[in-house]
């Protein structure tokens, strides 16, 4: 896993990168990816990139997902997020973590819809039972 903070990248470097992207890279996934990297750095975001076989500890995974460690351990114990054991320690592959994050986002979207449903959901619910 690589972390690049915006403070570690000069404006000159970013301009060089953007020039290479524009001039030398054909359209495709790589061009899109690097364009996003430079856009994010320009707006002051830190870049975190991982190969899908990079390894996260439960603490790191909890941080990525925005959860307490306890909550993350419950997710692991329920088998919802894959992990492997190194001795007594749990380790999570980046590919599995980010795939799980998409499922988590979907659950969060559904919960947001539930919170906002209000009286419309209340009325529609009576169509669901006799």
């Amino acid at each position, binding site marked *: 896993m690589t972390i690049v903070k915006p403070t570690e990248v000069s404006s000159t470097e970013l301009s060089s990168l953007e020039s290479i992207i524009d001039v030398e890279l054909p359209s495709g996934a790589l061009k899109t990816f690097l364009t996003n990297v430079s856009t994010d750095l320009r707006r002051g975001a830190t870049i975190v990139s991982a190969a899908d076989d990079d390894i996260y500890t439960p603490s790191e995974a909890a941080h990525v997902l925005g*959860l307490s460690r306890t909550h993350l351990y419950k997710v692991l114990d329920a088998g919802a997020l894959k992990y492997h054991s190194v001795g007594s320690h749990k380790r999570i592959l980046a590919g599995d973590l980010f795939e799980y994050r998409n499922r988590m*986002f979907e659950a969060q979207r559904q919960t947001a819809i*539930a919170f906002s449903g209000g009286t419309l959901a*209340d009325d529609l619910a009576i169509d669901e039972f006799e």
Partner: protein
Amino acid sequence: MARSRRVTLRCLCADFHQDWDDSSDEVCAKALRGIVAQRIDEKARDSDVASVLRRMRPLSQLRHPMIHAFDTGFSSEDDGGILRQSIKSVKDRQWLKQTYSSRWRGAAIEIKDTAWLCSAGYHREGSPEDFYTKFASECSESSDGFLPQKEDAELERIDKKIADRDAWTAQLHLSTLVLLAHAMDSSAAGPLTFPRPNHDDNVPVSESNIAVRLDISVETVDVDGDEASEIFVKIASEDPNSQLNQIATRVILAAIDSEPQAWSTTWISAKENLHSVILTNEIAHRATETRTAGAISARDVPGAVRLGTVAHWTREDGLTQATLQGDPVHALCGHWFVPMHDHASRELCQECAAVGLPDD
């Protein structure tokens, strides 16, 4: 318990030409009759009738003085000590006289545990237009036409479903707080299972008729070096995509903390999510108070959510479309929300502000 009081739709829409205290009630009554007719013809759903009912008062509390007189006149459990006069000119069944001032007269009937106001009109002494004279004439062969009709039965059926749903949400809210109080004492409580709103209490709850399963635990966690207690709420649903599941999720979580941003939600399986929130003194107090009382506090409204408390920034394109369609968007701070309110009047989310805006 007070007797149920109802007014037939025919009486409501055809007999009360004048003297409404609020004419919008008359408009609502006619709209209601129309949508019930469409429901009978299967051109509308029960929910369409429910949404019209939501915008009006119960029928027996619509603002007409004659309806009010009927509602209060039959509000006791039974007629002990009350002398009611029958309409003697109608022989095929017992119709009871209902009056309001010198002007209004009506005919009511008791069927099982419900008093119905079925007809009303002006009192005109000595005139063929007098209500009782006209009523007797129209009932000369039979008074069946004034009884509650199919449209009234249909409305009663839908009213009962609404009452079942409201009782179900109240039960969810109460049970959630009681279960939380137990979890605070012994770290974990549950599962509690809830059948669907129309569940027959004589039928045992089993795997085949569970709508929602609820588990709650409370654990000590580390939050930035400080200890705190975190509440974990696992909700499993027979049909995660149903409106009932959405309501259950909203009612259960809002019972504990009605601020959506306070919650962390994770996927456990296709039918289960795990939600967590920090246990505050306010939540702890409300849970123990509710368990002690064995009833929902008058301050609590099952399912009430505090939406739109802050304005968020999102990088999402199509924010207008999301607002129109009720789709959630992802805020810079990580919170998922359905955009709906005027953001300009809200304070900006501090975490979104810290993430910052893109350079133009």
